[in-house]
Structure formats: C-alpha cells, structure tokens
C-alpha cells in the first residue's frame, strides 16, 4: 500500500512539473494581453516533432536536437504572435480568441499533413530509462530528472520576473497596458519576450513529456494544452507562482484519483474540467490571484 502510494507520488510530482512548465506559457500570455493562447498546446507538440526530426532523420546529437527544437519553437511562437495576434490587439476579444483557435487548428492539421497521423516514438538517450529502486519503488531516472529540470527553469523564471528590468516591464504591462506605454516601456517587445519565455518553457516541458510518455502524435498538444490552461486558472491566471501551484495540484489530482479509484479511469480527462468549473464558481480569481474589480 505504501509502495503504491509512493509510486503515485513520484508520478504525480513528475506530471505536475510538466503541467507547471506548460501552464506558465498560458498564464504569462494571459497576464499581458488577456488572451487564451489556444495555440500554446500545439507549440508544445511542434517542439517534440523538431527533436524527433533532428535526432532521428538528421542524425543530430540529442542535446543539439533539443537546442534546435527550443530555438525553432521560440521562432514559431513569436511568428504566431506577430502575424495572428498583434494585428488584432485593438479588435474585440472574440476576434482574437477565434484567431487563436484558428492558429491552433492550423498547426494541428498542418502537423497531420507534414508529420503524418501515425504515432512516432520519441528518441531519448538511454540514461533516462535507467531505473532506480528506492524503498522498494521502481522509479525511472526520467521521473527524477523532470522535477529537477522544472525546478531550475521555474526558479530562473521567478528571478527574471522579480529581479530584472525586463521582468519589471512585464509586470508593468500586465498591470496596466496603457500606462506602461506612457512610461516608455516598449510594449511590443515585452509581449514578444513573453512569448519567447513561454514557448521556451513549453519546448523544455515538451521534451521532458516526450521522454516520459515516449509516443508523439500531431494532436498530442490538445489535451495537455487545455489542462495546463485550467491549471493556470486554478492557480490564478496571470500569476506565475499560481500556475506552478495549479500545475502541481492538477497533476496530483489526476494521478491520485485514478490511482486510488481505478473505476474512474475513463473519466480521467474530465477531472480537469470539473476542477475548472468548481474553481470558477467558488473562487473565480484562482487560488493565488488577486481580487480584480471590473472597471466599467
């Protein structure tokens, strides 16, 4: 019993870290331009395919393939922002949201066409598959690596946001878009940087996801994407520490509900949505979000 519990705990921590890494992208973009970036999940999927093509087709060494993947993913995200979101900055909210959905579908269907719909197996160095036995629980290396990498990334991010000038600009823009422009903050640059950071973290999360779950398909970004947005909402959207908290909570919820009540396995994908609706009803600003009064 204790062993099952420990096993689930290890799984939950690693799934939660992955959710947290991806949720950051949602929460930062929403914080700054008030947009649910539906394409974020597909950006994540793209990162995985770049690693696959780099390592398997072009025979790049694995670390180099990952680096290339991060760079290309960032370029993709910045391009999306530049051409699909920026022209609509002053448009009604509905238009931007539809545009985001359009981008998401475009990437998914394009990926199906280019990469093919069949699952591919994700390349990973053997090191990650090595298994440690700790207290009678078998834990693959990857399950240990994921939280460490996630922790390093998140700590770096918090440093950037809270202790650098760029981070200050980001906080300012998310607080008040117009006023920060008056304070001579280059808003467009700040928004671009937000997309850069968000997508780089998504790429890192994607690679870790690929190592952990080994198979990649063009539609794999959809569900994690939605769930991570929900994680961001649970933690309080726009709040970076909230996104981390939300990611971990969601990871724990999913693993433990399924682990302790196997009869609910079929409903696994619905948990996140139920959690979302509950949190929106009880505490719409999220766990760590500040109460915002709508300005009329």
């Amino acid at each position, binding site marked *: 019993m204790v062993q099952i519990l420990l096993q689930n705990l290890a799984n939950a921590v690693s799934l939660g870290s992955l959710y947290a890494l991806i949720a950051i992208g949602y929460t930062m973009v929403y914080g700054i331009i*008030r*947009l*649910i970036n539906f394409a974020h999940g597909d950006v994540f999927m793209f990162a995985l395919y770049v690693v696959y093509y780099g390592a398997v087709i072009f025979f790049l060494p694995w670390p180099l393939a990952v680096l290339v993947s991060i760079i290309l993913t960032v370029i993709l995200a910045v391009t999306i922002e530049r*051409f*699909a979101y920026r*022209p*609509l900055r002053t*448009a009604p*909210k*509905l*238009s931007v*949201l*539809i*545009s985001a*959905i*359009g*981008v998401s*579908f*475009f990437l*998914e*269907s*394009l990926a*199906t*066409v280019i990469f093919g*719909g069949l699952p591919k197996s994700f390349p990973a160095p053997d090191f990650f598959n090595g298994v440690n036995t700790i207290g009678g629980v078998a834990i693959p290396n990857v399950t240990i690596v994921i939280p460490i990498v996630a922790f390093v990334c998140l700590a770096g991010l918090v440093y950037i946001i809270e202790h650098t000038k760029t981070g200050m600009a980001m906080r300012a823009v998310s607080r008040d878009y117009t006023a920060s422009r008056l304070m001579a903050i280059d808003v467009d640059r700040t928004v671009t940087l937000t997309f850069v950071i968000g997508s780089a973290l998504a790429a890192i999360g994607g690679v870790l996801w690929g190592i952990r779950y080994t198979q990649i398909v063009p539609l794999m970004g*959809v569900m994690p994407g*939605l769930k991570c*947005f*929900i994680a961001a*909402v649970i933690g309080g959207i726009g709040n970076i520490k909230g996104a981390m908290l939300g990611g971990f909570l969601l990871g724990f919820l999913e693993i433990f509900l399924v682990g302790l009540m196997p009869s609910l396995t*079929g*409903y696994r*994908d*619905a948990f*996140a*949505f*139920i959690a*979302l*609706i509950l949190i*929106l*009803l009880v505490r*719409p600003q999220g766990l760590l979000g500040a109460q915002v009064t709508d300005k*009329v």
Partner: protein
Amino acid sequence: MKLSRNTLLALAAIVVALVVVFFARPLLGQFWFGIFTLAGIFVTLALGLNLINGFTGLFSLGHAGFMAVGAYTVAICTMSPDAKKQNFFLEPMNPLLAGIQTPFWVALILGTAVAALAAWLVAIPALRLRDDYLAIATLGFGEIIRVVFSNTQSITNGAQGLIRIPTETNVWWSWCIAILMIVFMVRLVGSSFGRSLKAIRDDEVAAEAMGINLYRTKITSFVIGSAMAGLGGGLLAGFLGSIDPKMFNFLYTFNIVLIIVLGGLGSISGSVIAAVVITFGMEWLRFLDGSVEAFGYKISGVPGLRMVVFSALLLAVVLFWREGLMGKNELTPDYVKRRFGRKPKVAAATASASTTSKKGDADA
C-alpha cells in the same frame, strides 16, 4: 390584410426555397443531393451558435456537446428494440430505454428538449462567467459530455457508438426545419427580446441600466441556441445513421464557428449562406485529401490538407475581413440596393456623410 413588401418577398423566398428543395435531387445528382441535405442541418446548427455568439456576444464553444445530446436522444428514441439489442453486445441496455421506440418527430422534439435542459444546467453556473472564461467553461462542458457518453455503456453504448439508427432525415426534414428556424430567428431577433440580446452584446452595463435582466436574458439565449444545436444534432443522427462520442469533438464546434464568422457574427442570412458554402466547400475540397498534381509533382493523398485550408480560411477571415460576408446586415432588398445598386449622387453623399459622422461618434 395588407402585407408589407418585405413580408411578401420573404414568403416568395420561402416558396422559391421549397421549389429548389423539390427539384434538388435531379438538379444536383445523388451525391451532391446528400450534401444539400447536410447543408440544411448546418443552417440550423449555425443559427443556434450565431444566436449565442453573434447576437448575444457570449462565446460558447460547447456546441458539439449539445449536438451530441440531441443526436443520442434521437438515436435512442428511434432505434427499434432489435437494433438496440444488436448494438449493445458488451453490456445490455438499460431496460427502461431498451423498450422505447417513438416516431422521428417525437424523437426530434425530445432531443431538442433534452439538449435545452442540459444547456440550462450548464448555463446556471457557466453564465456567471464572462468572455474567455465562458469560452473555456463551455468547451469544458462539451468535453465532459463527450467523456460521459464514452463511459455510460448501458445508455449510450460507450465508445462503440450506435449504428443502425433509422435514417429518417431526408431533404424535407432538414430544409423545412432550416426554413422554420430562419423564420424563428428573424422573428426572435426583431422582437424586444432580440433587441435586448443585441443590447447585451453591445454594452452589458448600459443594457443592465436599461432594465434588462442580464443573467436571465443570457440564459434564455444560451438555452435556445443550444436547443437548436440539439435539434441539428438529432437531424444529423437521422442523416448519418451511426454516431459515436468521438465524432462530436471540438472539430464540429470549430466548423460551425467558421461558418458564423465567415457569414458575419450577428447576421442570419450570412449564416445561412456560409453554412451552404462551407458544407459544399468541405465536400468539394475532398480532392485535396486524395492525390493532387501540383507543379509537376504528384502529391498522393494528403489526409488532413482540407483542414489546413479551412483553418487558414478562418484565420484569413478573422485577420483581414473581420465583418465576414454580411457583417451584422441582413440580405434584405434595402441592403442589396444600398450595397450593389447605383447610388444617386446626393444619396451617396449623405450616406458617406452619415458614415463619417458615425465614425466620429465611435471615436468619441
């Protein structure tokens, strides 16, 4: 009784539409005739979503979920006990449901009602939210409905879906209901209720100040629109003859969003035109999924290329042509005259003057 010009024209249009429906089979041939029937169903579905998104300004992404509710209700009501026994081989069907069999029209009404009930239950919590939160919550409800249907083995036959649903939906069903829905929407939008919907869309605060009960009006609009989704879903079940939960994924909602954005959010005639164009376009572009010869290369069968084209189309419309086909206008004689007719100079001058003054108002 003296009828106004517009009423007469509307009646004439209905008669023409019915004549077209009557001659559709020889005109279009067997294959396109089927697509024509499907187009009628999409008109109903698009009008439902346009009522919610276009006229009330709520962003619902749960349409496919309510379609699933309608489709399953109709399927379960119309299937014969024999067909049910064949379907439910993994687990016997709930005995309460296994015995019932109703005529198609009763099933359609039931499907609409059940979808409306589901929408009402969803709306009570969800419509406390705004904008994108509402979008993600309705999307979530759509997903939950799908997940539930995949797991309730004894009611919906789970992931296996249902086959051998009586194919009762013919061109008359689909288009008569479509025309009925068009008339219903025109009447609804023109009524004082319809005007309060538009008021909410344009400015919630001002609408509330005018004495509109926001919450209740929004719920009513959401329930009516989703009920239309249920009706369309029911027709779809009767048209296809087989359904499964996976079918009603987000892609269906996406198609309908594409239709209403292309037609113009807040335009009934726009939705009707776009529904027909998109449904036919979808089928016509099927050649993309087959083999194509381009620039001397033979690109053989690229499944999914069709969806690339459609998502690119949606993006293009949102980015460069935000009003869509009709904007918020309707295809009335006045509109046609204004848009395409030769304008006398004076009228044109006043028209441009009035638009500039309107612009000035908006800027102020």
